[in-house]
C-alpha cells in the first residue's frame, strides 16, 4: 500500500530524511516512532503530498506522490500533528466543506459525515461550532475529516499528542475500529509504548534514518539480554556519568533531566556493584532501580539521540 524507497529530504545542508526505506502492506498498522526532530513529520508530509522530496520514490497504492499527487490524495487521509479549525463553522458544515473539497457529491457526503460522527462519537455535537470543541474532540473531528473520502491509507501524525489520558484511550478505541475496517494506517508518535499495543509493525527513525523496523515481537527478539537501569540524582550528574563510564558492563547512558538511563549488560548480582561504585563516590542518589518496559529499552537502545557516553 505504501512504498518508500531511498527517500531523501534536505533543507539546505541539513538532511532531515536520509535514505529512508519502508514498505507497509495493505491492512497493516504501522507505528512510526522516533524522538522529536528525527524526521517523522517530514516523511509524513512527503507522503501526504505536502512537501517535495529531494530524491527517492514514495508510492501510495502504486501512485507516485510527486507525479500523481491528486490520485494519492484520493487514496490517502492525512491528519497533521498541529491543525486549526475555522471559526464560525459548525461540525457538520466542517465535514461537509472537506467532503466537497474532495469532490464527493452532496448526498453521499452528508451520509458519510453522519457515519463518521458516529464513529468518533461526536454525533451529539453535530450542530456545535467547531471552535467550541475541546482539544480531544477537535482531534477526533480531524480524524473524521481525514476519513471523509474513504481513503485506503490513513496517515496520522502524533494523533495522541496533547490529549489527556481519557482522550487518548478514546482515540485508541477509534483506531481499533478503523483497523477492523481494513484500513492501512501509518501512525507516528515519539512514545513507543503508546503505539506498540496497537501496531502490527513499528519502525524507529533517528536522525532521518530508519534504525530498525519490523514487528514488535521481532524487534524485541533482536534486542535481548540487556537491562535498563534508571538512576535519579539530586545533582552532580556529570560525575555520575564519569563513574558509570568506568564500569565495564555499562553499554549506554542517556541523560534526561536529573535521570540517567543506563543500558547494562550483566546479571542482577552485578547490579549492586554498580550501585556500590556510585555510593563510594558519595553521589546524591535519590532512586536506583531496574526500569521495566521493554519497549522503552528498545527505544533507548536504537535511538542514540541524547547519549552522553560510549
Amino acid at each position, binding site marked *: 500500500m505504501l512504498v518508500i524507497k531511498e527517500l531523501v529530504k534536505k533543507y539546505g545542508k541539513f538532511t532531515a530524511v536520509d535514505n529512508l526505506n519502508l514498505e507497509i502492506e495493505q491492512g497493516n498498522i504501522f507505528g512510526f516512532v522516533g524522538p522529536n526532530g528525527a524526521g517523522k513529520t517530514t516523511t509524513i508530509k512527503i507522503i501526504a503530498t*505536502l*512537501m517535495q522530496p529531494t530524491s527517492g*520514490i514514495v508510492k501510495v497504492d502504486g501512485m507516485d506522490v*510527486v507525479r500523481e499527487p491528486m490520485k494519492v490524495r484520493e487514496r490517502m487521509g492525512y491528519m497533521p500533528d498541529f*491543525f486549526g479549525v475555522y471559526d464560525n*463553522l459548525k461540525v457538520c458544515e466542517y465535514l461537509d466543506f472537506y467532503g466537497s*473539497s474532495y469532490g464527493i457529491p452532496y448526498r453521499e457526503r452528508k451520509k458519510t459525515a453522519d457515519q463518521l460522527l458516529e464513529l468518533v462519537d461526536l454525533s451529539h455535537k453535530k450542530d456545535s461550532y467547531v471552535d467550541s470543541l475541546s482539544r480531544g474532540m477537535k482531534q477526533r473531528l*480531524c480524524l473524521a475529516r481525514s476519513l471523509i473520502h474513504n481513503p485506503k491509507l490513513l496517515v496520522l501524525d502524533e494523533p495522541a499528542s496533547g490529549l489527556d489520558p481519557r482522550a487518548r484511550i478514546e482515540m485508541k478505541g477509534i483506531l481499533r475500529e478503523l483497523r477492523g475496517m481494513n484500513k492501512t494506517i501509518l501512525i507516528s508518535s515519539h512514545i513507543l509504548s503508546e503505539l506498540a499495543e496497537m501496531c502490527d509493525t513499528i519502525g524507529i527513525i533517528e536522525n532521518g534514518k530508519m534504525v530498525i523496523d519490523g514487528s514488535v515481537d521481532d524487534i524485541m527478539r533482536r534486542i535481548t539480554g540487556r537491562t535498563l537501569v534508571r538512576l535519579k540524582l539530586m545533582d552532580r550528574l556529570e560525575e555520575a556519568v564519569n563513574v558509570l563510564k568506568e564500569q565495564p558492563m555499562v553499554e549506554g547512558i542517556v541523560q534526561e533531566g536529573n535521570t540517567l538511563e543506563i543500558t547494562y549488560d550483566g546479571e542482577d548480582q552485578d547490579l549492586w556493584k554498580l550501585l556500590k561504585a556510585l555510593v563510594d563516590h558519595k553521589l546524591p542518589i535519590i532512586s536506583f532501580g531496574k526500569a521495566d518496559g521493554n519497549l522503552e529499552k528498545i527505544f533507548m537502545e536504537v535511538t542514540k539521540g541524547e547519549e552522553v557516553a560510549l
Partner: protein
Amino acid sequence: MKKWLYNPVLESELKIKMRGWRTAAAVSTYLGIMLLISYLYFNMTFNNVYRYRNTFDANYSIGLQIYTMLAILQFALIILITPAQTAGSISGEREKQTLDLLLCTKMSSIGIIMGKLISSMSFIFLLIIASIPIFSLALLFGGIAPSDIIMLFAFYMITAFAIGSIGIFCSVMFKRTVTSTVVSYLTIFILGILTVIIGVNMLSSYYSKFVNSATAVDPKFYTPFVFYLNPAIGLADILARQSGNSTIDAATLISGVFGFGYYGSSNPSGVVAGNRWAWNQWSLWLRNAVVMLSIAVALLAASAWKIKPVHRPLRNKMGGTSNG
C-alpha cells in the same frame, strides 16, 4: 450547480463571512460613511448655490457632480477595503494551520486561490450593490444614465479583482497576515503615486521634444504605459468620458493637476480614423482595465504555483530519467 462552477472554498467562505453581525455591520458602516459624505456635500453645494445665486437651478450638472463625488468616494473605499479582505486569505489559513488540510484535498491550488478571491470580491460586490440607492440620488437630477453607472461598477469590479490579486499574492508570499497586509497596502499606495510621477515625467519629456517643432502632435497618441497600471487613471478617464465637456471634469480631480485629464473628454467615443481595434484606438480606461486584468491573472497564476506543495520535476515531464 455545474461541477466546474462549484468551489467549496467559496461556499464555505461565504457561509463564514455572512454569519454573525460583522458583515451586516461592515455594510452599514460603509453605507453610513457614503451617506454622511454625500450629505455634507449636498449641504455644501446647496448652500453655495443659494448664497451666490439665490435660485436653485436643479440642472444636470448637480447630478453629475454628486455622481462624480460618489464615484470617487466609492472607488477610494474599494481601494481601501479590498487589500484588507484579501491580504489575509492564504496567510490566515497558514496561521490557523488549516492550509495543509486544504492543500491535501482534491482541490486544485488555483481553485483555492480563486475561491478566496471571488469570496472577497463578492463582498465588494455586495457593498457596490448596497450603494445603488445612494447612487440613485444622482439619477434624481439627471445627467447620468443607468448605463454609465453599470460601466462604472464594472470598472470597480475590475479594480477589485486587480487589487484583490495583489492582496492574495502578498498573502501567499508572506507568512504572516500583518506583513502581508502592510506590504499590499504599500504596494498599492506606491503603485498609485509612483505611476503618476513617472507618467508625468514621461509625458513632459515626450512633449518637450515638440516644443520648438512646427508640426502639431495629437496628444491622444501618447500615453505613458505606467498610466495603465493605475486604476485611478482609468476611473478618471471613465468619469471624464461620462461627464463630457461639462462644468466638472473628474480627470482634473485626480490627475488634472498635471494636465493630462482632458484626453478622455476630448473624444468620448474614442474612435478616430483607422483600425478601431488597434490598441491605441481603445479608450484609456479600457486599456487600463486590460493591463490590470493581465497583471492580476499573472499574479494569481504565480500565487497558485507558489502554494502548490509538489511540482512535477521538469525532466520527468519531458520523459527523461526518473529521480531515484
